[in-house]
């Protein structure tokens, strides 16, 4: 049946697919992962702080984000971010944020909910005695977080964080609903314009599989390397 396939469509569009599409996807993934981990760590710390209110706020945020299909979240942010921006900087009309910034904000905020759960598990996996030992040596809360708890939590969780980043990489494909040119968006635009859906989707599957599979192999090797000897 492959005889009927017209893979020429891929040759004609590979620059668009990779230079525009894949570049967008990878940049978005990398920035959203970094932003998500930082924000997620702060949320996790909020959630674990024994302070009043803060843990509840963090919990509501995480549960809210995790209960919505990503497609809906992408949709809402795309339309509401201009108004939020207007409100924040007090501009006269909704600000123009553009597809990239809008999706970056969306994915950072959305993935932060998932990363925060990972970092929370990471922080909780450090024996209580470590925090006690740090305090007993006279380190303050922030010093012991920065020098003792977070470095360990981060190293313990690095494989999980990276695995979640691979999920994020796949999730970014959903920006196609906004007609944004990520890799899958580019592929589906060409596919629809030229009526070559099957070829393009097969190709996309192969590309995604190759990248994710290699990445997860690397994660597994890394897992052995970074593991703290205990």
């Amino acid at each position, binding site marked *: 049946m492959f005889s009927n396939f017209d893979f020429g469509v891929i040759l004609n569009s590979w620059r668009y697919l990779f230079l525009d599409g894949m570049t967008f996807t990878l940049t978005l993934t990398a920035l959203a992962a970094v932003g998500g981990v930082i924000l997620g760590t702060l949320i996790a710390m909020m959630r674990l702080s024994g302070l009043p209110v803060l843990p509840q706020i963090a919990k509501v945020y995480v549960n809210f984000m995790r*209960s919505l299909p990503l497609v809906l979240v992408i949709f809402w942010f795309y339309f509401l971010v201009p108004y939020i921006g207007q409100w924040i900087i007090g501009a006269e009309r909704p600000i123009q944020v553009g597809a990239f910034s809008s999706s970056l904000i969306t994915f950072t905020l959305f993935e932060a909910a998932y990363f925060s759960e990972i970092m929370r598990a990471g922080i909780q996996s450090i024996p209580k005695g470590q925090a006690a030992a740090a305090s007993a040596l006279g380190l303050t809360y922030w010093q012991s977080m920065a020098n003792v708890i977070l470095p360990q939590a981060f190293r313990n969780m690095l494989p999980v964080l990276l695995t979640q980043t691979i999920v994020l990489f796949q999730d970014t494909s959903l920006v196609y609903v906004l007609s944004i040119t990520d890799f899958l968006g580019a592929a589906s635009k060409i596919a629809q314009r030229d009526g070559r859906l099957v070829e393009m989707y097969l190709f996309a599957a192969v590309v995604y599989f190759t990248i994710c599979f290699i990445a997860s192999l690397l994660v597994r090797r890394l897992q052995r390397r970074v593991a703290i000897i205990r």
Partner: protein
Amino acid sequence: MNYNWNWGIFFEASPEGTGTYADMLVSGLLWTILTALCAWVVAFTIGSVVGVLRTLPSRAAQAVGNAYVELFRNIPLLVQMFLWYFVLPEVLPESWGTWLKQLPNAPFYTAVVCLGFFTASRVAEQVRAGIQALPRGQRMAGTALGLTTAQTYRYVLLPNAYRIILPPLTSEFLNNLKNTSVALTIGLLELTARARAMQEFSFQVFEAFTAATVIYIVINLLVVTVAGVIERRVAVPGR
């Protein structure tokens, strides 16, 4: 914003002639729930088997389990949906392909199978993690008492592992529920698809998506509540 709000839209007749827009969303909700439940049965069954395979001493069993997980979790669900629906019938022998295409409710069956297989790879990860989180001694204690490997899994390892992974399994179930929305790409008339159709017919975009958002949050709360009840039910005293 230059937008004409009309919250009464839900009670206007939908152009499909099958009732109001609200009816349309409710029917979408029912498909969402049905698809999620059926896909979960598939995912839980296959996921448990694959998860167990990955913890067996046999190298071959581990390889099979790993291959399954790597294959199904490294391709975006959206693309998998498409492949199952459009490509699979073409690569099968012709008579099978035709049979598949003629199947009534094909989008539903395809969505259940595709989502089930995809979620199974994630359930398998959890099951494996759960079993490996048990002290190694548990397996040994079962074996030392003379239980066979199957009996050890059935009576000792799995009951414990499932209890440990109940919270992550709940999140996987919620993901599974949300992921049914991806099946709109193959024409399943679930909630998100209905919200989209509603906004395209009426142009009341925000009302349609607000309704979908609220419904998803409500089902989520329900699922979380039920999971909490189950968690308390199966909790082991003294732990």
